[in-house]
């Protein structure tokens, strides 16, 4: 059984449908990357899975099966033993991930005492150990978040998410707004931590280059829908959806002799105006008539890969059913 299975999930903010019938699953020990331009619904999807949406955001359909339990109907009280212990969230750096008025140590202690109490000495050792995992010296445990650099804060947030050894961690743009060297650090560090703690993760980012490095599988979002899911390696080599292809071309190999980036002309559709057809059609270089009339269904194959594109379907015929 998959650790996480999202089934026909739909999320709205009033009249705007930000997540549209999204289905995918995440196997144990895997990292699934979720990529797309800003406004494509990545954060909304992540928050919906963690049941952290704030009004007017609400789940209006579908299921979030987490370790066999559907989280969608659960109340706050029922979610309490799951949060942090089983499912932790790491938000974008600079966001209110850490409590600004508590020293770092207190934030670890609060988490431990609430969910898995231990003695003072053991707890001290645990904090030291968790900080060491992200290469932060113990003396920083008594600092306040604002006394740390952006990169250090993000690493503390990661250590804090890990402290109760959850099964699933949802990272929302964990490397965005950090310097490139710190981004590299976080990616490399997360890979090592995963080896050790065997958590599964959703890694949400607009940065396809980073996602392809860290994720086992990648889900590409466009205008609230999944347009493609594939293994990271095959996505890098054989992106199916024209949007994935275009996005990939925005991330050149830094060692290449010649670099040319065309970008993707135009911008994503306004989610408020509902038109027929494929949402990517106005920016797509490979359209056929049908793309203007009919929204392509997301077709998954038994291995969990899938694509939503009329062109691909015509090309591949029966591979997707």
């Amino acid at each position: 059984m998959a650790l996480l299975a999202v089934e026909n999930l739909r999320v709205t903010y009033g009249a705007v449908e930000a997540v549209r019938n999204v289905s995918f699953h995440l196997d144990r020990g895997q990292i699934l990357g979720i990529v797309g331009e800003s406004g494509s619904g990545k954060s909304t999807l992540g928050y919906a899975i963690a049941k952290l949406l704030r009004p007017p955001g609400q789940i209006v359909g579908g299921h979030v099966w987490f370790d066999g339990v559907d989280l969608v109907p659960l109340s706050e009280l029922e979610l309490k033993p799951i949060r942090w212990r089983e499912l932790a969230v790491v938000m974008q750096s600079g966001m209110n991930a850490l409590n600004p008025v508590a020293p770092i140590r207190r934030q670890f202690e609060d988490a431990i005492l609430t969910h898995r109490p231990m003695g003072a000495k053991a707890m001290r050792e645990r904090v030291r150990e968790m900080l060491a995992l992200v290469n932060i010296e113990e003396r920083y445990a008594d600092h306040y978040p604002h006394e740390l650099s952006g990169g250090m804060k993000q690493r503390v947030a990661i250590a804090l998410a890990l402290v109760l050894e959850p099964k699933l961690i949802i990272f929302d743009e964990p490397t965005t707004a950090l310097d490139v060297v710190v981004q590299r650090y976080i990616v490399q560090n997360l890979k090592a931590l995963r080896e050790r703690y065997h958590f599964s993760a959703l890694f949400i980012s607009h940065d396809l280059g980073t996602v392809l490095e860290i994720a086992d599988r990648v889900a590409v979002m466009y205008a609230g829908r999944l347009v493609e899911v594939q293994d990271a390696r095959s996505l890098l080599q054989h992106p199916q959806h024209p949007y994935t292809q275009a996005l990939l071309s925005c991330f050149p190999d830094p060692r290449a002799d010649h670099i040319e980036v065309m970008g993707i002309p135009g911008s994503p559709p306004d989610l408020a105006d509902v038109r027929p057809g494929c949402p990517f059609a106005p920016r797509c270089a490979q359209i056929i008539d049908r793309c203007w009339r009919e929204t392509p269904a997301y077709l998954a194959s038994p291995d969990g890969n899938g694509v939503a594109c009329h062109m691909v379907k015509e090309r591949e015929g029966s591979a997707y059913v």
Partner: protein
Amino acid sequence: MSDVRAILDVKDVAKTYRTRRNGRWQVVHAVRGVSFRILPQHIVALVGESGSGKSTIAKLVTAVERPNQGQIVFDGRPIEEWRRHLRAYRRQVQMVFQDPYAALNPLNTVRYMIGRPLINYRHLGQDALSDEIRRILETVHLTPVDEFMEKLPFELSGGQLQRVVTARALASEPRLIVADEPVSMLDVSIRAEILRLLDELRRQQGVSLLYITHDLISARMLADEIVVLYRGTVVEEGAALSVAKNPRHPYTQLLLRSIPNPWAPPEETAIDLSRIDRTSDEGGCVFRARCPHVMDRCAQEVPPLRRVESQQVACWLYEASGVAVGRSDP
């Protein structure tokens, strides 16, 4: 290089700030003796991580701040002289900021925002004004022009807003544009268009550009030359392609290694995780605390810029091979 007169010549410029930290006054060396020049119609990229002094240099060049040391010469005249003609200076040296949302008044239409510098700096009358606004909007590809003229900022996408900001900077017919992270806030998918636009402006309008970025790849794509900054110091400079593809300074090498690269095997991009938070004390090489090649000498003396093949590199590793580069003033 010295045959053509530089449009901008930054000579050994330093800037310090005094700040209060944990109840004590501290001196921050934002920029420490930086020199570079920009030739007419050239693009120079200043590349460095946050805090390396890029925006401070932008403020010095645009005469928003004064250096504590050194001199900036624009079009043959020191900036201190230009200060008496600040209006003329501002007309010729325009700035494009990172955040187009913050740079534009949400209540003004595109027509008004482009029109104002045309009236202020170029004193255009009503008829000429409309034509010129149209021409500029076409230059930045905000077409069809009529559709965009009456738009307010909230009706435009991030990429379109950055075009408006660029159009406004162009309106005064500047000779130099200082663009401080102009694409950092934009989606990767629309960055390329803005970079192409900046390149077009240099080719077709003849403006020079100081392109400030933390992104080595975009610097390589757009600029003629790259100047790499670390903690207020130039550690490497040279032709954009060679600096970005074949960097010599250990810091530039670290930057290149750090760029997301799913094509490379992991060992090619792996970095030493233990040095990341270290900072060097004053004196010596600014990068030594994080440098994998650090030697005794690095703590004792500041390495000067030396020529290493086509680049100039401030690193003791190249002492034997490099030739020290002195700056001779024209």
